[in-house]
């Protein structure tokens, strides 16, 4: 029997590590490059390495949106080998290879942009310091550089932006991250208690608490061979859609703020409050910390809560519709949004963006429909796709996704399932197992991977936030735009710093 090229699995399926086919590096590279070649329904969802018996094991996961499958293959390399990079042939792998290079010192002979990624504390070369990041620069008397950050003017997370401008026009933007690095992936392996790990998952990105925690608990239940109760699937889906509505509403407020439309900022800003307050009524925390738990839920969803949510939507929708109709008809707002910060279809495809940052440019990437999980298996989800790739497209997606989520939730509220009393069940990870879990959070696809050793202890826990891919799209979006349009471009993407830096 010949060695298969890859193993094909579903989202949240657990397999034995030894079932993942192993190849030599050249074959491994060719297989994965060929999987992506000429097929826009496929993209790399995770590519990472870990140390096993003095060698580095690389695992590459390619998602196929049409077949609803994930193709996983692997390879062993030595850290002193010089390798030919995937990125030279497909830019989807750019960040992944930078991460592998930073963590293990693997040398790539032909990687076009082999720069530090996040200056992780356990990086291979500790002489590389965050203050000495090698920025791209151009020697010219006509161009100037503008440095912004790491601390920004607003109340937001840190990151450094270096612009090369010709007058007011941005020629190039380089985004340097890593300031938020807290060593989360390593803490996942080190901390042994389930509640510690769940708390870590809640802290990966505080604006995507439900997204990351749901990914973690889905993965954990699969890793422990536990079948998720349908009431838990229901609760997680409700929480995910509520988080989407809340953050999208806040993002519309922020977009209004950045084009000095004060009324829009105030109205959207206040409309977010009833949604997050509902999360507090349900689980005691406005950002849903403490709500999602593996194998149980401490705060069962009740028919009273369902009634309450419908009341909230009944009050929310008329005000939302009124301001939205105004905003999307307002000439001064449209002129700031239209054709600002454009990323084309070919560019997003080359970068391999996910979530809203793909759907804004006609690239259909939405895990809810392509790799359904939790209750999405019974919702016929149609992704919202726009084609212009500009700020306007990103604002439109938010507007329409909010409406879509409300429709889904109104429907779900008619069939609230029976919840069991919260009870701790014993969950023990299976030995020598590999699991991959994906969730479409409001920003886009979140992907977590876990591998256990022969005792069922975690060998590696790998986290990928959608921002991992999408920061590059922001850098592309601002090219040839005025530097004064940078804030609105940035806000229309609203990417995560801590989700990237981990």
């Amino acid at each position: 029997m010949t060695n298969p090229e890859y193993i094909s699995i579903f989202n949240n399926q657990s397999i034995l590590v030894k079932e993942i086919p192993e190849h030599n590096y050249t074959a491994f590279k060719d297989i994965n490059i060929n999987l992506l070649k000429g097929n826009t329904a496929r993209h790399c969802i995770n590519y990472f390495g870990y140390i096993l018996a003095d060698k580095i094991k690389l695992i590459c996961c390619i998602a196929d949106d049409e077949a609803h499958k994930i193709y996983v293959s692997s390879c062993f390399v030595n850290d002193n080998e010089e390798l030919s990079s995937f990125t030279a042939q497909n830019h989807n792998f750019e960040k992944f290879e930078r991460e592998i290079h930073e963590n293990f010192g693997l040398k790539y002979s032909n990687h076009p942009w082999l720069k530090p990624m996040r200056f992780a504390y356990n990086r291979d070369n500790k002489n590389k310091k965050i203050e000495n990041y090698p920025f791209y620069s151009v020697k010219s008397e006509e161009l100037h550089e503008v440095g912004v950050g790491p601390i920004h003017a607003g109340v937001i997370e840190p990151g450094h932006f270096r612009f090369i401008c010709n007058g007011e026009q941005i020629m190039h933007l380089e985004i340097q991250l890593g300031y938020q690095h807290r060593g989360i992936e390593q803490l996942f392996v080190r901390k042994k208690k389930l509640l510690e790990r769940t708390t870590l998952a809640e802290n990966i990105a505080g604006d995507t608490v439900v997204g990351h925690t749901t990914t973690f608990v889905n993965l954990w239940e699969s890793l422990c061979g536990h079948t998720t109760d349908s009431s838990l699937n229901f609760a997680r889906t409700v929480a995910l859609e509520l988080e989407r509505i809340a953050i999208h509403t806040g993002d519309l407020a922020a977009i209004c703020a950045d084009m000095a439309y004060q009324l829009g900022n105030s109205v959207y800003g206040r409309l977010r409050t009833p949604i997050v307050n509902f999360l507090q009524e349900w689980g005691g925390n406005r950002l849903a910390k403490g709500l999602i738990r593996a194998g149980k839920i401490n705060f069962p969803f009740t028919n009273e809560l369902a009634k309450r949510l419908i009341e909230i939507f009944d009050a929310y929708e008329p005000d939302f519709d009124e301001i939205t109709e105004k905003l999307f008809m307002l000439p001064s707002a449209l002129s700031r949004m239209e054709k600002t910060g454009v990323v084309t279809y070919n560019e997003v495809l080359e970068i391999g963006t996910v979530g809203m940052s793909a759907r804004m440019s006609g690239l259909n990437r939405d895990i809810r429909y392509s790799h359904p999980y939790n209750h999405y298996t019974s919702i016929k989800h149609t992704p919202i796709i726009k084609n212009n790739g500009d700020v306007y497209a990103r604002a439109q997606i938010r507007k329409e996704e909010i409406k879509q989520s409300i429709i889904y939730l109104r429907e779900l509220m008619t069939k609230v399932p029976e919840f069991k009393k919260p009870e701790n069940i014993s969950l023990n990870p299976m030995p020598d197992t590999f699991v991959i879990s994906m969730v479409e959070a409001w920003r886009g696809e979140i992907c977590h991977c876990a591998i256990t050793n022969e005792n069922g202890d975690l060998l590696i826990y790998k986290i990928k936030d959608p921002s991992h891919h999408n920061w590059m799209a922001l850098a592309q979006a601002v090219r040839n735009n005025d530097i004064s349009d940078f804030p609105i471009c940035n806000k229309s993407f609203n990417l995560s710093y801590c989700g990237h830096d981990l």
Partner: protein
Amino acid sequence: MFDNLKIMWHQGKQFIPDVTNAKVPGIFRGRPIITIADVDEATLADLCPTHAISTQPVSIDLGKCTFCGECSVQFPDKIIFTTDYHLSTNVREKLIIHEGDENPITVDPKVVRKEIHRLFGSSLKLRQVSAGGDNSCEWELNASNNVQFDLSRFGVDFVASPRHADGIVITGPISENMAEPLERCYHAVPNPKVIILAGTDAISGGIFADSPALNRDFLSKYHIDLYIAGNPVHPLTFINGVLGLVRKKGLRRLRTDF
């Protein structure tokens, strides 16, 4: 223009008139009460993901607590979370809740530096530094100034530059990579200045407390003026904490009726 007026009219009155006594909706987890019920203390302490619970007698350190509520789910007779969002103090020990303790957490005006009351009582400009923060506290600090909580009405604002600020608000456990920018930002603020720690991560490191990717030396070098507990801090916790710090007469004159 008439559209705009109509939209404004439809919003009605949004602001919270009394930010000190307003009720929060639902089951908000605020200041806990520890009863004298007899429980297996070792199991209770072992439950906590951030080692916030001590035993003999039982106490909870809200500077470490992530407010996940697991202890009160498993020991409902022992630990009861109230909806009291007044969780700020200038004395670190006051964040430790002891058995039978039902007193509210307050700022002790006697220990507040005199110049704070004198200079910042009616105007305080703050620079926020996120140092490994997960964007939840940042998110709530932004919410503090939306039309509902409206922090600006009390003369407290977030400003863009440390040069314009009277102090800094730190969120996050302070990552190694942010240690130097934080230090530089602090030095760019003119004297006298205040330091406020917002959120569990900033106060104790939270779930990241023992991560090797942190560098919390900054906190041992300078005097911390205010600790605001929460994961993330609730806007009302933040507003009451800051006003409790800068206003000598405390919160009595806060009510703004229009």
